[in-house]
């Protein structure tokens, strides 16, 4: 069983001795064998053999040098930044009602998680004459979500068809949206169009009229949290028949996404593309612009909103990826907490916060992170890695090898079958239902009965173990004050 399940060939069966042996040097610790072994006979332990202790020259640092000395290449990796940078969500605490303002029990009273994404009008003109209250001025196109959680951009190519189908089906069941990433949209998934955000990225893979028409919204991808400033590279081996058709590129050719969008070198250029897409879809769909969280995100976000973006998506430095140079993933970008706080603040100061919704992404692990992000000013949260974990991912970070033992980040037909979309959809729906329940509990505890009332309410947050500067950037008071 273990021998057959390991795509990295870490288990070997010797038919002469009838014995199974393992090769620790190729084991990635994905736990596939551990999970499926019928006798629970397998344990994966860290090999105790290590280099001589050294606080500077850690085994990780030494091994990377050895690998590069052998290959002369850039070190690749998958998933999000795994270095021990501070996680600011863990330094923020939520408030709860006591005595003076009653808390609400979500099991007894209605609680609203519905979220609308898109540009909001300057003011509402209401018509009181009819039986029902009507809004007179036309509303810009909005996305209606039953939960403030969406599924991040993960392309068909980076993840398997079954994984894409799972995200689409779960989004439909949950009344939310998934994002195609830059890999185009497989023809079989057009039926989930009303729950799909399609991406227009630097490689323009799979972008055509039906692609734009089918989607509920369009996202222009400028950058990605895991690799800000870096393009994408889907190796030719992964460009199998279906992917070549979906991406509209020859089979077996490398799919290279350039680092910049070659037609965008300024906010004015971005405006041209935003309006080209709005024009192409007759102003019926909100246009989102996604950037990686970098040092001057607030100023860039202001420009994006002024360029006409209806939604701005910010991807923090812990955002995942199918493949990225390790040095970029681990060292470029800033935490989403700071980027979000400074962008929300900047847009409010400039009086343009209502012109765009803010979506944040990058390492959201649980419902508390989501609630804290909304209190910091986000309208919604993209989850990627958490969704993959619900589907079976064990975060072994080997997505870039194409040998995902869980059938997620692979195009190998033998491995892909391991992800049954029916099971995975149910698990993903379960996860979001669980988070929704928890979000409602947290809102109820604060005495709030709609997620809208929490948005940007930083008084619901207190910082712990943070410096004055960090508190100032986050715009929250320290715990106890």
């Amino acid at each position, binding site marked *: *069983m273990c021998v*057959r*399940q390991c795509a990295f060939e870490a288990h070997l069966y010797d038919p002469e001795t009838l014995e199974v042996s393992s090769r620790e040097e190729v084991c990635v610790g994905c736990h596939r064998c551990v999970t*499926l072994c*019928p*006798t629970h006979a397998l344990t994966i332990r860290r090999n105790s053999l290590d280099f001589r202790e050294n606080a500077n020259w850690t085994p990780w640092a030494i091994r990377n040098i050895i690998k590069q000395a052998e290959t002369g290449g850039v070190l690749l990796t998958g998933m999000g930044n795994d270095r021990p940078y501070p996680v600011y969500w863990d330094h923020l605490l939520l408030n709860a009602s006591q005595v003076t303002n009653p808390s609400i029990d979500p099991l007894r009273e209605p609680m609203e998680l519905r979220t609308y994404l898109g540009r909001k009008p300057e003011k509402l003109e209401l018509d009181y004459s009819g039986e029902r209250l009507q809004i007179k001025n036309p509303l810009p196109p909005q996305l209606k979500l039953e939960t403030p959680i969406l599924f991040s951009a993960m392309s068909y190519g980076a993840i398997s068809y079954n994984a894409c189908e799972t995200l689409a089906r779960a989004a439909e069941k949950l009344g939310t949206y998934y994002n195609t990433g830059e890999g185009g949209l497989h023809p079989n998934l057009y039926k989930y169009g009303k729950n799909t955000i399609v991406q227009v990225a630097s490689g323009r893979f799979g972008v055509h009229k039906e692609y734009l028409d089918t989607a509920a919204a369009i996202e222009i991808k400028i950058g990605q949290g895991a690799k800000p400033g870096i393009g994408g590279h889907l190796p030719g081996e992964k460009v199998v028949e279906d992917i070549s058709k979906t991406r509209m590129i020859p089979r077996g050719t490398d799919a290279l996404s350039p680092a910049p969008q070659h037609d965008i070198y300024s906010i004015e250029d971005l405006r041209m593309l935003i309006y080209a897409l709005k024009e192409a879809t007759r102003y019926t769909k909100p246009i989102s612009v996604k950037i990686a969280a970098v040092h001057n995100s607030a100023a860039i976000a202001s420009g994006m909103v002024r360029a006409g973006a209806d939604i701005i998506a910010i991807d923090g430095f812990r955002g995942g990826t199918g493949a990225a140079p390790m040095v970029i993933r681990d060292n470029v970008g800033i935490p989403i907490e700071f980027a979000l706080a400074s962008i929300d603040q900047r847009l409010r100061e400039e009086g343009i916060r209502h012109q765009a919704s803010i979506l944040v992404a990058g390492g959201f692990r649980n419902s508390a992170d989501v609630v804290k992000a909304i209190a910091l000013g986000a309208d919604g949260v993209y989850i990627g890695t958490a969704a993959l974990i619900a589907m079976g991912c064990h975060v072994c970070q080997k997505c870039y090898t194409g040998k995902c033992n869980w*059938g997620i980040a692979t195009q*190998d*037909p*033998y491995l892909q*079958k*391991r992800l*049954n979309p*029916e*099971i995975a959809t149910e698990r993903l729906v379960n996860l979001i239902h669980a988070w929704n329940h928890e979000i409602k509990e947290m809102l109820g505890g604060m005495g709030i009965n709609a997620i809208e009332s929490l948005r940007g309410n930083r008084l619901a947050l207190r910082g712990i173990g943070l410096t004055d500067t960090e508190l100032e950037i986050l715009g929250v008071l320290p715990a106890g004050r």
Partner: protein
Amino acid sequence: MKRIFIKEEVCMGCRLCEIYCIVQHSRSKELLKAFKKENPRPLPRIMIEEKGSTSFALQCRHCEEPYCWEACMSGALYRDEQTGVILHNREQCVGCWMCVMVCPYGAISRDLREKKVASKCDLCGGKDPPICVAKCPNEALVWVEIK
């Protein structure tokens, strides 16, 4: 009446169905004992057929008009009138293997040990669902009501 159906698009060829089928038909019904101590070890009545990336778990289809039953000269193969399941009596079987020859699915295997008899799926003697369906980690085997 329920029957096992195969979803080959999600069968990953892990062969856990074979393993649990052996355990279910062992004396001890315990995995390690069945494999290490029991001799002869029962044969799996479910077989993974595999070619390239395609695989599926094959077991007796319990046909309405079973060729194996017609071909069985000793009367070892019989139909349970209540459930419609085709069963096999090891004691009565003479090991002529005509059933193996005529089965259009290749779902009956030869047991070369002991008394040379045939070995086939008995739907776990009424277990609901059968062990292979219950233990399939990817729901590639489903237990569905048929008309």
